[in-house]
């Protein structure tokens, strides 16, 4: 696609044993944009993030991160790439033995030799950006799910990454927290010039903030476009997903034997 692709996923296939999770998927994430990857549960969305982060390797195809191929076997190069990205895990993945402040300070302490006073300032700035400067000294057990997500976001942006990946940032949040998180994702992206990648099944929130969206179903990209384009699409896959229809190309019933057989009925 365009030369300004920050992440390029090219014909990637991935699976476990016999089960194919992604098959020949090609996606481009342009620099500076918010791109959403949407799809039902278990369709391979999170796998895509893990592939970009080099936690797993594709069986076929390649992933390019700002011009460099992600290679999970070269740990040194992989760690150098990972230092340029921040990832927000689905439930925050905060370190429960540290305070809120220490969680955000963690990447700074590990990767920089900054003096304590500067670490303090950066941490408080990042916490301020997510509205939780006042919660700095709380323990992780004391914060709510929505706050945990925001703290994790502050931690993910502590080193000003060029790419921020969000794994289900809206799952399990109340409407207010959801709105706050969506707003933050967009604002952070625009303020820092980072590239953002959201994996989610929350159509409304994603469409509010993303520039471009991909729809994955059964390991394949079935549609992509701007939110407007997708909303006016006639494609049955897209329509079922966006409107949340219980039956359609994605069937309501898990594959089963004929019902008459299971209940011992005669036709």
């Amino acid at each position, binding site marked *: 696609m365009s030369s300004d692709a920050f992440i390029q996923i090219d014909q990637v296939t991935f699976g476990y044993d016999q089960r194919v999770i992604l098959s020949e998927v090609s996606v481009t994430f342009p620099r500076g944009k918010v791109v959403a990857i949407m799809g039902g549960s278990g369709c391979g969305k999170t796998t895509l993030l893990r592939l970009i982060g080099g936690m797993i390797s594709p069986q076929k195809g390649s992933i390019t991160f700002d011009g460099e191929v992600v290679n999970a076997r070269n740990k040194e190069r992989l760690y150098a790439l*990972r230092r340029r990205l921040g990832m927000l*895990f689905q*439930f925050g993945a905060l370190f429960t033995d540290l305070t809120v402040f220490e969680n955000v300070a963690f990447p700074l302490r*590990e*990767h920089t030799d900054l003096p304590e006073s500067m670490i303090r300032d950066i941490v408080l700035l990042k916490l301020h950006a997510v509205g939780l400067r006042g919660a700095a000294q709380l323990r992780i057990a004391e914060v709510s799910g929505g706050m945990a997500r925001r703290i994790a976001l502050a931690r993910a942006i502590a080193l000003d990454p060029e790419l921020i990946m969000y794994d289900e940032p809206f799952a399990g949040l109340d409407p207010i927290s959801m709105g706050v998180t969506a707003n933050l994702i967009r604002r952070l992206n625009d303020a820092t010039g980072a590239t953002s990648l959201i994996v989610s099944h929350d159509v409304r929130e994603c469409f509010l903030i993303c520039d471009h969206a991909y729809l994955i179903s059964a390991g394949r990209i079935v549609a992509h476009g701007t939110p407007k384009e997708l909303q006016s699409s006639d494609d049955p896959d897209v329509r079922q997903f966006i409107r949340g229809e219980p039956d359609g190309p994605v069937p309501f019933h898990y594959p089963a034997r004929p019902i008459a057989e299971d209940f011992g009925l005669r036709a």
Partner: protein
Amino acid sequence: MKPADALSILGVRALRTLRGLGHSAYFFGELLRSVPAALRRFHLVVAQIHAIGNYSLIIIVASGLAVGFVLGLQGYYTLSRYGAAESLGLLVALSLVRELGPVVTGLLFAGRAGTSLTAEIGLMKAGEQLAAMEMMAIDPKQRVLAPRFIGGLVAMPLLAAMFSAVGIFGGYIVGVQMIGIDPGQFWSQMQNGVDVFDDVGNGMVKSAVFGVACTFVALYQGFEAEATPEGVAQATTRTVVISSLAVLLLDFVLTAVMFSTPR
């Protein structure tokens, strides 16, 4: 079942066991390689020595005292038959520093500190904390596992020494204070008969080996635990079973090497 089926099941099990052994050996190598990086974060190591040592201190002291009491009583009954009750100090001290100190400490350590290490690491894995660290370009082996490994390795000999010391004190209470053996005999026989290097030193080496084994098993089980409540529960159980067996088997091997030829 056909013989061919049985054979193939056997083959699958053998291969799985071999793969597990290879995997754990590789993990052990990685852990050792992470030790220098962990030493650079020295405050983490100190915190772990403190935490792991403290986890087990009360149980070690209480058990050491109880074992010392029993050794004092049993030793007195047996020795007095041969008119050698004055050697009680020597018997108590040698039993403790050579065998009971390192072994019982190893077993208690597996149950107390080992399980908590496995559960902690397993839950960190289940909460994606280890994955989050990986994604921050921080190796969890260096940041989380290696400091705990060094902590266990250092804490175990210290705990074993504590166990033996308290045990000897327990033997003294029963033998001297309660039964009335001559305290001069009790201590001087111990002083003459216990060698710093052969007995105390070898006991320390034993407990250091147990420290490596128990901590490694606990960390490996936690790190490889399935990231579910059942997975962590099973890993914790495996930690106790494998560590305990490892301590007892290693103890036999080490005893055979260290004390087989009478000097």
